[in-house]
């Protein structure tokens, strides 16, 4: 977009695109609300899990997609949040909802601490530090078996629908999760649109330049880790509500990797991508093992590779490209005027063109 066009305010194409985006949000919300009324309880349970996962994926995307800091250990915070909730519910008898802010606070603090090494090391070295944490956590859980139930795990009572709510338990749980997940998405969207988001992206693009522009890198990095872990912690709580059981085996390394895969599948540095990423990590492994028990892992991997090839920029990249093309066609038909610029390919950045929504360069694609 030229500087002149920017000064003249949003172009017609952009306005149409804006509308399309709003319509898409509305559609997603509608589907989200409709799901529990049209599907059986097992499926509703699966979508409840998708919502829980999406919060963790979203948090990781803030860190990796926007901030360019790699974490291979988000499963650890997910576990920490899950166990915090589980122990508080089962041992301390707290009501479910009250454990969510506590799990969030615990993970925020833990994330802050893990953010400290990020001040000194970066790239692969940082990735390895976070990986070590993810490896250590299940072992630690087993060692503190007085509190955590050890390998046996903990059975956790699930939230049940109060009498005045005309919903089945699984529907209630779904809406409870939805109501907790939506603010997390709104919060993240506001965060990346504002100062912090711009600072994160500036840091991702060039730490030196960001510093020169007055970004406090140390504070930014630690708070990025802390906030991202907070998201994982909330997701862990929601996961416990939905599964009703935690064990060390709930949090193998593959959980951390699945979250990473999810942000790439959904689209790096996107907010909505978290939903698609979460859908991917919940459903693809299950379908894979339905196809063949013996080849489940291979099929999952193959699908993941196929996604990487077919969808540059993730699902959100494709959606944006489609939306943009649709928008330019719509506005051309309506106004019968030629395009002021050619349509962009799939990987095109969003029309708003703020750096915060541009896919980062670390995809290597």
């Amino acid at each position: 977009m030229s500087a002149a066009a920017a000064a003249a305010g949003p172009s017609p194409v952009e306005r149409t695109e804006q509308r399309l985006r709003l319509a898409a949000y509305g559609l997603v919300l509608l589907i989200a609300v409709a799901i529990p009324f049209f599907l059986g309880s097992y499926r509703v349970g699966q979508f409840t899990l998708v919502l829980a996962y999406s919060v963790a994926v979203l948090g990781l995307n803030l860190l990796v997609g926007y901030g360019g800091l790699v974490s291979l250990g988000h499963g650890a915070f997910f576990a920490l949040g899950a166990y915090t909730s589980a122990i508080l519910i089962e041992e301390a008898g707290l009501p479910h909802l009250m454990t969510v802010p506590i799990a969030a606070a615990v993970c925020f603090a833990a994330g802050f601490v893990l953010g400290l090494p990020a001040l000194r090391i970066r790239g692969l070295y940082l990735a390895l530090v976070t990986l070590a944490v993810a490896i250590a956590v299940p072992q630690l859980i087993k060692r503190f078996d007085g509190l955590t139930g050890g390998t046996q795990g903990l059975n956790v009572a699930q939230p049940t629908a109060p009498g005045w709510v005309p919903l089945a338990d699984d529907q209630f749980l779904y809406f409870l999760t939805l109501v907790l997940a939506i603010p997390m998405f709104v919060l993240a969207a506001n965060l990346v649109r504002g100062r912090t988001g711009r600072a994160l992206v500036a840091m991702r693009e060039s730490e030196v330049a960001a510093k020169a522009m007055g970004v406090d890198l140390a504070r930014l990095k630690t708070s990025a880790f802390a906030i991202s872990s907070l998201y994982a912690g909330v997701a862990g709580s929601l996961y416990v509500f939905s599964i009703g059981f935690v064990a060390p085996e709930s949090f193998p390394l593959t959980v951390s990797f699945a979250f990473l895969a999810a942000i790439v599948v959904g689209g790096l540095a996107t907010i909505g991508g978290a939903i698609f990423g979460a859908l991917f990590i919940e459903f693809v492994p299950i379908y894979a093992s339905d196809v063949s028990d013996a080849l489940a892992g291979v099929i999952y991997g193959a699908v993941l590779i196929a996604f990487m090839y077919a969808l540059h920029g993730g699902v959100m990249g494709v959606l944006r490209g489609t939306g943009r093309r649709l928008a330019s066609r719509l506005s051309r038909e309506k106004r019968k005027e030629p395009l002021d610029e050619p349509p962009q390919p799939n990987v095109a950045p969003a029309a708003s063109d703020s750096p915060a929504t541009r896919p980062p360069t670390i995809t290597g694609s």
Partner: protein
Amino acid sequence: MKGLRGYVWIAVLAMVALIAAGCGRDEDKGSSSPGITDAEIKLGGSYPFSGPASAYKSIRDGAKAQFDFVNDNGGVDGRKIKFTTLDDAYEPPRAVQNARRLIQQEKVFALFNTLGTPNNLAIWDYVNKQKVPQVFVATGASDWGEDIAAHPYTIGWQPDYVTEAQIYADYLKKEKPSAKVAVLYQNDGFGKDLLGGFEKAIEGSNIKVVAKESYEVTDPTIASQIRKLAGSGADTFLNITTPKFSAQAIAAIAKSDWKPLHILNNVGASKALVLTPAGLDNSKGIISTSYFKDPEDPQWQNDAAMKEYKAALKKYSPRSNPNDPFNVYGWGAAATMVEALNNMKQPNREALMDSVRNLDTEIPILLPGITVQTSDTDGYPIEAMQIQRFNGDRWELLGKVVQSKRQT
């Protein structure tokens, strides 16, 4: 744009109104049990087809062969048994998801033979809350029969680990009354149950546990544990492990200079899966227990039950190894299930539990003298075992069937 935003809000409000109007889904409550019709009975199971405990998948194959065999011979009162199984990789969280899927999605009549102590502990609260029978679970933990009132829909099948531990203790008291025992155990419910039972059973005797080492089921190897136990000066080794680790332990001991009396728990006493890979020579002299007929024991060569099993397995699961005891196990557990289904007075879940809690029968594939008995106060179907010793080629039964002391 404003208009569009308006539509979005209208849509949201409409959906909220929909909820408020009480469009809660009708759950099928009260009606006759799901998963059973005049033509079909749906059963569900969760097994490790992948992961460290995947050797157990033969149990599913044996059970499936029994059900197929029964189906081809008229089924249960004309009902064909459909057995749906899912992979949980021996991970409790996946077992939870599988149980939900089987109950809510596949709408099975009952869970049958779900495998693994931690896995069954992970699902039993949920399953009992749903009032779904969780019968003949494939684990020997003592939990399943301990408190029937707390989990009325759950019951085990095989002799529980406490019973088994008692029988080893009795054997040692007779054969090696001042044994110094080193124990390797799996650090979970299964391992602690058997170890606890053994420690209790040797109380007041001259038998001492001089060393204990544990491992996690996810560990790659137990070499260092064996080294420590070998250095403990024990003359007896109680091996409380699942197949992969049983084999590792036998091989590791063969390589060391430690020559203890080796007691291997029934779970790991598979010749095909454990002793052969570990080396048959290395396995000579190992003591274990059994409660069903060993397909390799020549004394059962012309046994009707054994012939029936071998023929059915060959027909319905041709790729399975008939000598794999886990196939026999699955076959026997499924035969007990068929018996329980046959005794049901009505086609519903409560009637199945009534039938399961009032068993008094002999399952022909079990060792002669062993009966399957339950009552409202006895939640342990099989409570007898026989000591066996590996002679370098096959297991040899020693002495007689031993009844557990719990049975009064």
